[in-house]
């Protein structure tokens, strides 16, 4: 197992795109987060909005870069034919996917932590004293986990459909179609349920620090929904990888 892990780590380390994409995660997240934070005029006495959520808005963009990184981790091997070499050298296919997942999770966790730290710092500087409390650390740590889970979801989808363009289309549809439909739908019950089951709408609940009772889903339950999506995608992807010809 450790050899498989090392092989995957070497691949991830030596492909030129990885470093750029990791920098992209940090840049996209902190840039959007800071811009939104700076453009928000929040009175010091009465701020009805959620300052932690505002400063972490960049996650909406950062997750797209995470998805690219995760999809390329496996679909690049399919597009070059490298996957056949990998699977010949490491015949335990489930182990290969698990090693890919472990390396990806480590990389995304590191980059995500830096991105979230930068965003929260910007929020702390620009929105001083506006309800920053203990749950901010939960929102920040949870956002890093959110990015890791989006990465695993994308890896699972990519293992299923193999083509990078289709995989990224499926992942971004899964993430964005639920909130878009929920936004347009006039029935508040449906809206509520759609936001409870959508991977992005549920997972982003981890960022709520105010009015927790008025949200469709609690923070950790929401992250759990995303984790279920990621687990489902990884299991299906792993099963297909084991059963199919490469």
């Amino acid at each position, binding site marked *: 197992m450790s050899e498989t892990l090392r092989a995957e780590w070497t691949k991830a380390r030596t492909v030129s795109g990885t470093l750029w994409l990791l920098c992209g995660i940090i840049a996209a997240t902190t840039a959007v987060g800071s811009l*939104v934070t700076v*453009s*928000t*005029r929040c009175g010091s006495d009465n701020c009805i*909005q*959620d300052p932690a*959520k*505002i400063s972490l*808005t960049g996650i*909406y*963009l950062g997750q*797209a*870069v995470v*998805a*690219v990184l995760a*999809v*390329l981790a496996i*679909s690049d091997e399919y*597009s070059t034919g490298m996957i056949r070499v990998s699977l010949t050298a490491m015949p335990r296919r489930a182990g290969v996917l698990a090693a890919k997942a472990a390396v990806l999770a480590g990389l995304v966790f590191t980059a995500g932590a830096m991105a979230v730290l930068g965003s929260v710092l910007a929020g702390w500087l620009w929105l001083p004293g506006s309800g920053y409390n203990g749950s901010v650390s939960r929102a920040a740590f949870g956002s890093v986990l959110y990015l890791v889970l989006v990465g695993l979801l994308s890896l699972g989808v990519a293992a299923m459909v193999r*083509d*990078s*363009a*289709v*995989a*990224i*289309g499926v992942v*971004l*549809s899964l993430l*964005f*179609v639920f*909130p*878009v*439909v929920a*936004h*347009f*739908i*006039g*029935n508040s019950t*449906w809206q509520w349920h759609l936001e409870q089951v959508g991977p992005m709408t549920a997972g982003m609940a981890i960022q709520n620090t105010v009015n927790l009772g008025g949200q469709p889903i609690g923070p950790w339950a929401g992250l759990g929904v995303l984790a279920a999506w990621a687990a489902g995608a990884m299991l299906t992807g792993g099963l297909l990888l084991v059963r199919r010809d490469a």
Partner: protein
Amino acid sequence: MAATIAPYRPRVQPRRAGFAQLLHAEWTKLRTVRGWIIGLLLVPVMTAGFGTLISSGSECGYMYPGANGQLVSGPCSAPVGPGGEVVQDQFYFVHQALAGNGSITARVTSLTSSNPQPWAKAGIIVKAAAGARGDGSPRSEAVPGSAYAAMLVTGSHGVRMQWNFTGDTAGLPGDVSAASPRWLRLVRSGDTVTGYDSADGSHWTRVGTVSLAGFPATAQIGLLATIPPPRDQGHIAAGQELTATGTFDHVGVAGAAGGSWQGTGLGGPPGPGKNADGFQRTATGFTVTGNGDIAPDVGEKTISDTLDGLFAGLIVAIVIGAMFVTAEYRRGLIRVTLAASQGRGRVLAAKAIVVGLATFVAALAGCVISVPIGEHLLRSHGNVVDPVPALTWLRVVAGTAAVIAVIAMLAVAFGAIFRRGAGAVTSAIVIVVVPWFLAVSSPALPVTVSDWLLRVSPSAALAIQQTIPQYPQVAGDYGPNGGFYPLVPLAGFAVLCAWVAAALWLAVRLLRRRDA
């Protein structure tokens, strides 16, 4: 001495590889790959499917006390004005019939409310008694949505002359009070109505003359008061409405007016309620209390609400557009393509045109299916759908399909820029969907930032779906959340086209400079 050998010349003359041949070649590629045909079929399926899902989940209804005191729900309803648009026509009307020409004059000394609104209204009105009864006899009462002209004192917009819901002209500025009352006069002569105002009752200024096409001989003429609910309050329980009260004196009617003054609460949801509405005679005139508004209804559903499935179709179109280029890079086919044709820019242009036309046709099919089904579903769930003229219908439906097609062309350009499927698809989706998503559904962004996002990002093109204009005389929710975009439809579409032109330019430059 060696004999010279004549060089081989093929008998078939090489045909000039024109742009038409290039288009034909690209069309053949698109047509013969099964995945792309499936993708093209998915565009209308996703657009119509998600559109139908959204329409069937949108309900509108009023709860009101029924005959035996239990709450009954009824569908939302809104009358249609003379211009064909959905309107609000709810006010308290103290009226009498006026046969033929005549005039009404009144002095307004106050307009009060517990929660003053800028567009609260009190004033005089001449309103058509439209249509005929079921038995053919002419109606004598005014009905919601019929033609009218009115001189109104407003909460904070001075005196206005308004007619047929969309017309609005300013008269005397300033608020009304006992110390500075406003005199109002309406003169009806045939189809034309002229409005006058005055501060003292002796020096009159003409505010406007309007022509009301087909105005019936017998009209209702009288006094009114109404007040729109505050913007942040949605549908309000019956009996709990905010009301405004206007105080009138020196009321005079000239012409063949008949009978006594009658009070009618016009329009509004069914059932009893509006308890505070009514009128009282005072020593010198009347006080009239009413609620509602006389204005275009900007809060109802429109046909663009049946086309929200475009986001699902859009993502499929982006994947097709990007892969139409990146798949050639992956297989190395791009080298054959470039070797076989003259000019790399022309290859990309041919690809963009073929993808654009194919996705346009596919998306158009989806939109044409989506709209009638969606309208039917919306209406059957109690919603009011604003009827639109045929040209607007065409603009919204064809425009939505064009937005999908042009974004697919953007994806073609991104495919040539990135040469990798994942990067091209992600960039295209992120640049189109994320700004719109942040602007419309993120509660964190201030309105100014949302507006700018919808001005400069490619999602500005969605303005092509806007059917209801923003009326200065209606305090509506004109933010992106209410379906209103900061740019006019064609300007928004032009922003997207500018993005595509810039991306294609960059793509051609890179394609020429780089090795394939």
